[in-house]
């Protein structure tokens, strides 16, 4: 077996048994990166020397009997997480030379558990996008391709496209990601891997470059549900440095994967049956529900009456917060600064921000500034907050009757790199199934469940109650087992 073909769980077992070392595992992944990253562009920064040094240190710790929960496991870190001493760009020119002097809480927790960082994963600029085409470091390519059209390069989804592509192409055993409107679940589904956005507050946001503070949440992507559970266990937990992080114990998520679904009630929101939805997606959803019934769950139709307003609500709330969060990129203290002789302060702002931000980020800053402006605030931002409260209440009502909700993860499989680029609204529709979980702060897991007619992966989504990731993992693992998803992307290490 090629070392990059291990699941994270499998690699942990092999390391424990001594059949492989962290150095060997890390080197195999670095070799894969050297071979495939020039094409996939999944990593913006590869820290090969640091990774090998960390792997050696890990092997020494293991030899000395000090074994962390992720001891020796090579991971990719989305380039939105600040990493001390390693450049952190957020996919933006405005941060292209920014080297943080501090480590994000989530990445520090992974390091504390013995993980090895291979490098920083590409992403849409400031995590804004659903195709990973807005990165200042260039687009990421999906390692999958259409069976009958292998030359059309596909997007990996976004914004965590680099993380998902790296894991799918076996360039990491797992990766950190973040999800503001679907940025973990949509790329996971497009790349045929698993990914969970946990409950808002489960993972600390400290040290993660902010997009929309009330929606952003970190989570893992990995090739199996169990691998996600193992990673999340290490990433999660209360952090006094994030006032919105939840002071709750972190359960053993991996154990919860094996709970099964017997007796669970699974909600099927009727509002998610969209007109014109691809028949393959409808069929996969039906299949998923049948698998759950076969495993002893009951499926129940539920109503989330305000779900149809989720996307417009999201595209008001998220840009509003982003317009404020991104105000700090002004060229004064760090990052890119552009001036001309004679520039005054205003000119410095305008030149720096015009040169530093790409078009999608500029669009969202403008939308956000507009919806918060005097005279428009009530009609847009305030109204959106009210609708958000109603969406949250829809879920509370639903969870009185069901234990989890299952929906498609995305309205389609991965699309071509040149498709949907001219129509922002068509692009925003990618998030239609995922944004509700962000608006309501609920955990959502994407599981690879099948292939479309072109041989591209499709995913199902499990949405749970707040802080009930355990049930989400149990349902997700049941779907994963039934789906027995064994298809592989064409581009992958060790192939």
């Amino acid at each position: 077996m090629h070392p990059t073909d291990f699941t994270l769980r499998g690699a942990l077992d092999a390391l424990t048994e001594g059949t492989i070392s962290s150095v060997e595992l890390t080197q195999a992944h670095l070799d894969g990166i050297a071979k495939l990253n020039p094409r996939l562009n999944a990593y913006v920064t590869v820290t090969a020397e640091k990774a090998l040094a960390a792997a050696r240190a890990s092997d020494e710790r293991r030899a000395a009997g000090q074994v962390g929960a992720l001891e020796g496991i090579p991971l990719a870190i989305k380039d939105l997480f600040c990493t001390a001493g390693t450049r952190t760009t957020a996919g933006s020119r405005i941060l292209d030379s920014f080297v943080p002097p501090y480590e994000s809480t989530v990445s520090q927790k992974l390091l504390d558990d013995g993980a090895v960082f291979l490098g920083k994963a590409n992403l849409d600029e400031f995590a804004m996008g659903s195709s990973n085409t807005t990165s200042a470091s260039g687009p990421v390519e999906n390692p999958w391709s259409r069976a009958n059209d292998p030359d059309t390069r596909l997007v990996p989804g976004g914004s965590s496209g680099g993380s998902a592509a790296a894991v799918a192409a076996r360039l990491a055993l797992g990766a950190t990601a973040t999800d503001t409107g679907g940025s973990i679940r949509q790329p996971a589904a497009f790349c045929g891997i698993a990914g969970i956005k946990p409950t808002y507050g489960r993972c600390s946001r400290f040290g993660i470059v902010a997009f929309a503070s009330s929606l952003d949440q970190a989570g893992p992507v990995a090739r199996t549900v169990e691998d996600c559970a193992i990673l999340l266990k290490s990433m999660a937990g209360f952090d006094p440095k994030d006032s919105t992080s939840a002071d709750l114990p972190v359960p053993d998520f991996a154990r919860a994967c094996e709970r099964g679904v017997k007796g669970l009630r699974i909600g099927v929101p009727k509002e998610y049956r969209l007109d014109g939805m691809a028949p393959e997606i409808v069929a996969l959803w039906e299949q998923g529900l049948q698998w759950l019934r076969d495993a002893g769950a009951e499926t129940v139709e539920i109503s989330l009456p305000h779900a149809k307003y989720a996307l417009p609500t999201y595209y008001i709330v998220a840009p509003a917060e982003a317009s404020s969060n991104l105000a700090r990129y002004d060229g004064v203290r760090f990052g890119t600064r552009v001036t001309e002789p004679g520039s005054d302060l205003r000119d410095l702002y305008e030149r720096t921000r015009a040169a530093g931000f790409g078009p999608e980020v500029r669009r969202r800053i403008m939308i956000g500034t507009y919806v918060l402006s005097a005279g428009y605030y009530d009609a847009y931002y305030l109204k959106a907050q009210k609708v958000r409260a109603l969406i949250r209440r829809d879920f509370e009502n639903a969870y009185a009757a069901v234990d989890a909700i299952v929906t498609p993860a995305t309205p389609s499989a991965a699309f071509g790199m040149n498709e949907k680029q001219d129509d922002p609204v068509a692009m925003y529709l990618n998030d239609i199934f995922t944004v509700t979980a962000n608006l309501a702060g609920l955990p959502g897991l994407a599981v690879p469940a099948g292939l479309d007619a072109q041989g591209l992966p499709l995913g199902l989504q499990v949405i749970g109650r707040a802080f009930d990731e355990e049930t989400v993992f149990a349902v997700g693992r049941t779907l994963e087992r039934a789906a027995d998803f064994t298809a592989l992307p064409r581009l992958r290490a060790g192939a």
Partner: protein
Amino acid sequence: MSYTIEGRTGPWELVIGLEIHAQVISEAKLFSGAATEFGAEPNSQVSFIDAGFPGMLPVINAECVAQAVRTGLGLNAQVNLWSRFDRKNYFYADLPQGFQISQFAHPIIGEGAVEITLADGVTKTIGITRLHLEQDAGKSLHDQHATKSFIDLNRSGVALMEIVSEPDMRSPEEAGAYLTKIRQILRYLGTCDGNMDEGSMRADVNVSVRKAGEGFRTRCEVKNVNSIRFVMQAVEAEARRQIEVWEAGDEVFQETRLFDTARGITRSMRSKEDAHDYRYFPEPDLPPLVLESDWVEALKAALPELPDVRRARYVAMGLSPYDAHVLTLEKETAVFFETVAKGRDAKLAANWVTGDFFAALNRLKRDVADPPVTAENLGALLDLISDKTLSGSLAKQVFEAMLETGKAPGEIVEERGLKQVTDTGAIEAVVAQVMAANADKVAEYRSGKEKLFGFFVGQTMKAMQGKGNPALVNEVVKTALAG
């Protein structure tokens, strides 16, 4: 008779409201652990949070919240158990996040009231609209370099309380008295040091004018006035400007102005048209601030005595309302006075503190916090007066010597032999000498020129180098002249 300014068209009334920005006394900043000490090296007290670095998040400092609650309680104001922070968005080089975290819609403290005392002894109640917590910006230095501006972020993130008054003041004096009163209360509470020259307290002054019986006319805001005297001057200057505008048949437009202290006029800073749109919205990085009522009650129970209560207590001790007012203006003065008065005659203590002691402070340009005579020594001097060791005039001599030498009064009396003579025999001997030397005047006195009594007392005291007990000297002179 209320205060008015006479214009060409007759008298105008003033309407004044103040927004006071008071820096909270706390070890650390409102949302970061960085220190807050005044006068440190530029950019030496800055955390990554204060500098607005990527991924940094605010965490509220409980002590700053406690200080705001104490202040609210001291202003007899409503403490809101649920409040919320908002972002106030604008770009400036010394505002690292591109927004200020403030409380816009739901402040921590609601309505309250304070009583001010004016020079004529009249008291007036001024309404408090609200108090909210917010973070300060950094400081831009434009005078350090020919083409560059420098930024000092030491102040960035320091906790401020903004205290907003109702438009209840009607004269420069009332505005000055209100600001003085707020500063006094904050200093008593220990929630703000009130040092306006260090910028830890500053005021935005809202002024409008009107004819008697009218509603409010358009107001202008004079920003960042940094002394009580300037507040009073700014009120008057701005009121006079507005009167001129109205009387010229023009209209006053709502705008932000600055007070030019050198020229004593206000200047336009920005008009309403180009006012910022601050795009306030709830701060998503901070959950709402929820206070336990038990916690608030505990803060209330531990509040120090406030100036109004202290003043009433002094009046009850027998002090005049004026002395009680003067002695309670500054907490340090009150503490000094109470040390002097402890176990002694309160009125005598008040006379000495407000009289000779204050005069000495003025003359020596010293402060009650750094007094030229300790309260203990001044108390000991009072003891020497009470036990008749010293007469009033001798006491003044000893006090001067205390100022010069810093020594205890007993020591000075001992060294210089300033002890008062209370031996009647000794006084009689001196009086006899004086009468013998002035036989002609004795005759005049006895023939009815009684005004000469003072002459004999004076001559006797002079001969005794001021050490004679004045009452005894009087008595002996009277008896001797009566012959």
